[in-house]
């Protein structure tokens, strides 16, 4: 297996290097063929690894590839841990990546940076695989930052656009704020265990939880709580949880294929994956889990609301992604790690599908992204229409779709997670995910109806060119629509209730809500049949119907609501003023501090007073001294006499 793992990781890297360095000599076809073959190989081998793990019952592989450095008894190494959690992630990552590679041939057809784009997305695949396959914190951090780098490069792919290069700087810096917490978390782990190796750290989890760290002198905090919260700050950056979410909507400045691959399906779920991977640590700190669940709940509900007022097709989906990431985070906080990973998987399929469908519309519309200028596209683009419908239904959790199983059970898990107590934490989490269902259905179908149904609001020029996109675009749509529709039905039972993850995910006995739900589990069919008895179903249906009423039946009403509730509308339209706060507060504040320190500190105080002041004092002193050196003999003689007198006086009286 060793060589398989290496091939899975290195094939995309090699392809990225070849496509990146040889550039124009390779030509366009060369660049996309070599990267697609490499990622295809990774995908095929990943499927084999998954089969080996799941069907053949293969052993968990945990080994080191090479030693990065050793000093002070701290081994810093690069290695792989392949268990069922990893294998699942590998398949999801390489599958979505492969679809996006193919789709890119159509989407970027006329772009001068074609080869560069393929190089970047292959490099991304490598980085993401390094992240999920890591068996230690050093490599985790490497993958973590490497995917951030590629995200930076791809958001700013069209580097001539001012908005794109503002967005990529913002994305990198906000992620770095998260990484700031993350690296302190890793440092705390090394402080407690003197190891970076997962297995070693997990083995000493109990002893970490029994110790304290004095962050503020005199008030000891539980070491595990400190570690878990610090690591989670990293997850908040990468998985765009409030208040570090601001970069994700702006990341839509990048080309659509990477919005699907990086900013929906894979990279942004790295934080979710990381917390699930660290479940042996999180299980030992209920405080940290409470923080996780609250942050997730806030993100899930409030970011969904913003999605309702957005008019850019990609931004609506971006806010939807934020909200769904919030759902996954809530599941983590409820110790339902399997449910979080299950939703991560279904979401990867249907959200990648929605983004690629949106991209298909954008291409057909000649890069128009404003949904107010769309409408009635259904009859021009049937394949895009039907696949988008599948994606939308999966997103709102239509019974039987993949999203139904993952979201329904996620919400049930939160409902049953009474160990957080019946207090505020529990109710905030539960109500957020429940009401979020209505919000999700509302913004999803608002988007769907505004784009595909109703009046054709585009101008005639665009309308005359409007037609279905070529096969390289529609085939990936169909390929993603299939798992979006059906994968939940077949996988829900083994993944959530069949102890699929084995030892990869640890859940404390009293936290194990999924076991409780599993006790009453009667199969996928039964869950679908009983869907109508759940509030989730009615909330989703209500949201979808509201969207139909407002945007198909009575399209005049939304404007009225907007006027009546202008305060709320503005709050949502300005995204709760987070951007204003960050730009006016942190960015401008940072520059002001820099300017003050530069002008008042360096230039005025240190250089002005200390350095040049000293220089001036020296030169003034020199001026005085020069006065003494008159050149007249009697002056020197006089000075000598004074000096001699003083010396003699000192010798006589003081000794």
């Amino acid at each position: 297996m060793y060589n398989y793992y290496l091939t899975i990781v290195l094939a995309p890297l090699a392809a990225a290097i070849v496509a990146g360095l040889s550039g124009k000599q390779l030509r366009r076809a060369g660049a996309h063929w070599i990267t697609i073959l490499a990622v295809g190989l990774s995908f095929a081998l990943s499927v084999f690894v998954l089969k080996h793990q799941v069907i053949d019952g293969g052993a968990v592989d945990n080994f080191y590839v090479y030693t990065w450095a050793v000093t002070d008894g701290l081994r810093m190494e690069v290695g792989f841990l392949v268990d069922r959690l990893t294998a699942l992630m590998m398949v999801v990552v390489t599958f979505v990546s492969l679809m996006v590679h193919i789709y890119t041939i159509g989407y970027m057809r006329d772009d001068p940076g074609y080869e560069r784009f393929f190089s970047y997305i292959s490099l991304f695949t490598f980085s993401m695989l390094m992240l999920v396959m890591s068996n230690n914190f050093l490599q985790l951090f490497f993958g973590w930052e490497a995917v951030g780098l590629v995200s930076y490069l791809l958001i700013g792919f069209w580097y001539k656009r001012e908005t794109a290069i503002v967005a990529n700087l913002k994305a990198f810096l906000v992620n770095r704020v998260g990484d700031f917490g993350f690296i302190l978390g890793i440092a705390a782990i090394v402080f407690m265990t003197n190891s970076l190796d997962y297995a070693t750290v997990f083995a000493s989890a109990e002893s970490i939880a029994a110790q304290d760290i004095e962050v503020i002198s005199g008030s000891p905090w539980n070491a595990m709580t400190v570690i878990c919260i610090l690591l989670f700050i990293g997850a908040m950056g990468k998985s765009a949880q409030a208040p570090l979410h601001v970069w994700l909507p702006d990341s839509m400045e990048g080309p659509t294929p990477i919005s699907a691959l990086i900013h929906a399906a894979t990279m942004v779920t790295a934080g979710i994956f990381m917390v699930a991977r660290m479940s042996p640590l999180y299980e030992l700190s209920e405080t940290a889990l409470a923080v996780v669940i609250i942050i997730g709940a806030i993100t899930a509900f409030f970011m969904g609301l913003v999605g309702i007022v957005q008019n850019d097709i990609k931004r609506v989906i971006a806010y939807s992604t934020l909200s769904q990431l919030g759902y996954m985070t809530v599941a983590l906080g409820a110790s339902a790690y399997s449910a979080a990973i299950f939703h991560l998987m279904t979401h990867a399929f249907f959200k990648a599908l929605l983004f690629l469908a949106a991209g298909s519309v954008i291409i057909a519309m000649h890069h128009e992204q404003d949904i107010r200028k769309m409408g009635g596209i259904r009859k021009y683009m049937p394949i895009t229409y039907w696949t988008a419908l599948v994606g939308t239904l999966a997103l709102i959790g239509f019974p039987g779709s993949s999203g139904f199983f993952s979201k329904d059970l996620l919400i049930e898990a939160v409902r049953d997670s009474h160990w957080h107590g019946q207090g505020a934490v529990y109710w905030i989490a539960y109500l957020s995910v429940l009401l979020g269902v209505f919000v999700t259905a509302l913004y999803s179908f608002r988007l769907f109806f505004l784009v595909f149904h109703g009046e054709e609001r585009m101008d005639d020029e665009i309308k005359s060119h409007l037609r279905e996109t070529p096969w390289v675009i529609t085939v990936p749509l169909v390929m993603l629509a299939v798992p979006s529709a059906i994968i939940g039905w077949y996988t829900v039972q083994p993944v959530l209730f069949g102890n699929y993850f084995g030892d990869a995910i640890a859940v404390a006995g009293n936290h194990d809500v999924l076991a409780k739900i599993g006790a009453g589990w009667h199969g996928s069919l039964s869950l679908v049949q009983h869907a109508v008895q759940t509030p989730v179903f009615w909330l989703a249906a209500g949201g979808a119907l509201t969207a139909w009423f407002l945007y198909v039946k009575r399209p005049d009403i939304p404007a009225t609501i907007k006027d009546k509730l202008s305060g709320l509308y503005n709050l949502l339209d300005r995204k709760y003023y987070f951007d204003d706060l960050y730009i006016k507060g942190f960015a401008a504040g940072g520059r002001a501090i820099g300017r003050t320190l530069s002008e008042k500190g360096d230039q005025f105080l240190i250089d002005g007073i200390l350095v040049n002041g000293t220089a001036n004092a020296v030169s003034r002193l020199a001026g005085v001294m020069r006065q003494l050196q008159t050149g007249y003999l009697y002056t020197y003689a006089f000075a000598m006499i004074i000096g001699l007198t003083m010396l003699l006086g000192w010798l006589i009286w003081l000794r």
Partner: protein
Amino acid sequence: MDFSQHFLSILIWLPVFGGIALLAIGDRHAEGSGWGGTMRVTALIVSALTFLISLKLYAGFRNSIAVMQFVERVEWIPSLNVFYYLGVDGISAPLILLTTFITPLVVIAAWDTIKVRPAQYFAAFLILEGLMIGVFSALDGLLFYVFWEAMLVPMFLIIGVWGGARRVYATLKFFLYTFLGSVLMLVAFIYLYRLTGSFDLFVFMEVPIGMTAQKLIFIAFLLAFAVKVPMWPVHTWLPDAHVEAPTGGSVILAAIMLKMGGYGFLRLSLPIVPDGSAYFSGMMIALSLIAIVYISFVALMQQDMKKLIAYSSIAHMGFVTLGFFLFWWIQGDSGAVLGMSGGMVQMISHGLISGALFLCVGVLYDRVHSRQIADYGGVANTMPVFAAFMVLFAMANAGLPGTSGFVGEFMVIIASFKANFWFAFLAATILVLGAAYTLWMIKRVIYGDVANEKVSVLKDLNRREFIVLGVLAVSVLLIGLWPAPLVDMMNATIEHLIERIGHSKL
């Protein structure tokens, strides 16, 4: 003559005599082939040969032992008991390799960009190289001091002759700052000589010294080294010197001369006055953290690319001094070696990255004759290959894992957490601030639409520039992906040093 017995001498004197030979060749027909070509080729051959010879330092170096290797020791001034005493260990060997690696690159980079007195320019760099290797290998106090001060002269000339408009102010500031600091170091050496009757650094390390004397000696050394590093608040000479220096001068200054300060702390301050170092360690850590945070904010607002990189250098060198002085604050039984190795790796890495960034600015300056960020924008449109390099080095400067910039910072942050949460907290702010100032510059210079006519006619890297930046890029990635060879080289020496400074000398 047995070469292996005089290995370090060859490394020192080969470039020095090569430089003198260049002065003899002179600038005749500098523009044409003939003598002009000979002069450049000679400089390249001498520096390349020095590098090749220095590789034996890596190949023949024994990692497992902490004692001095490649030792040479002959009497120099018998009446004063001064020896010509050379040797290297795991601390100095990597720094010598860095020196011999960077110098040929500087020579290539200056190939046809220096029009005024090129022979003397190349000669100054070769002589400087030899003297710097001398500093890193001298084990006799007086010899160390002689190399240390002699080194100032070529650098003074490089900035003063080939520098920019305010070069006189900058050179004076540079000279006075560094000279005043090092004079006190001489005083400390003389005191130690009076105490021991020798200038042998190992004798200095063994002799018991009282607490007051240790504190005073520490301060004397501190002034010499803190100026070189430079540490806050004696750093303001560096931005001025960098701005005025020619590209090669900036590269050598940032890549190697700053490392003299860090090296001095390890070679002299810590082992000779361990109790004095312990006494001041809190202050040293505080100054290092101030450098990281304060200077990063200052860097954010710089409008001149060279100034920005200069301030970035000061902030990154803060990690070096932070890592070196953590020993007395670490709780538990490990972490000190990690911090010190981290500081050392940071020195090597910073040498490569800051050198590369100054070369990048040089590439732009040669074309546009401006260092102002505002004069650029959208360089990626006309210089895509250059843009790729500059983004890579910027990412390395921002400490991206996989590049050398990450290695040292990671080790020092982890070690400082073992001392105090807030040390690590403040040090880790570089993740955000370092990315902010570096990538904001990249955004304004590299990305965007073509900003003006000068940018629109830029030509991408020529072969010579490509080679220089390419070699640096490979080494930055290599150390980032596999720092083990470098770290292994230093381990034994640093463990030995930690062992030594753990014992009081009172």
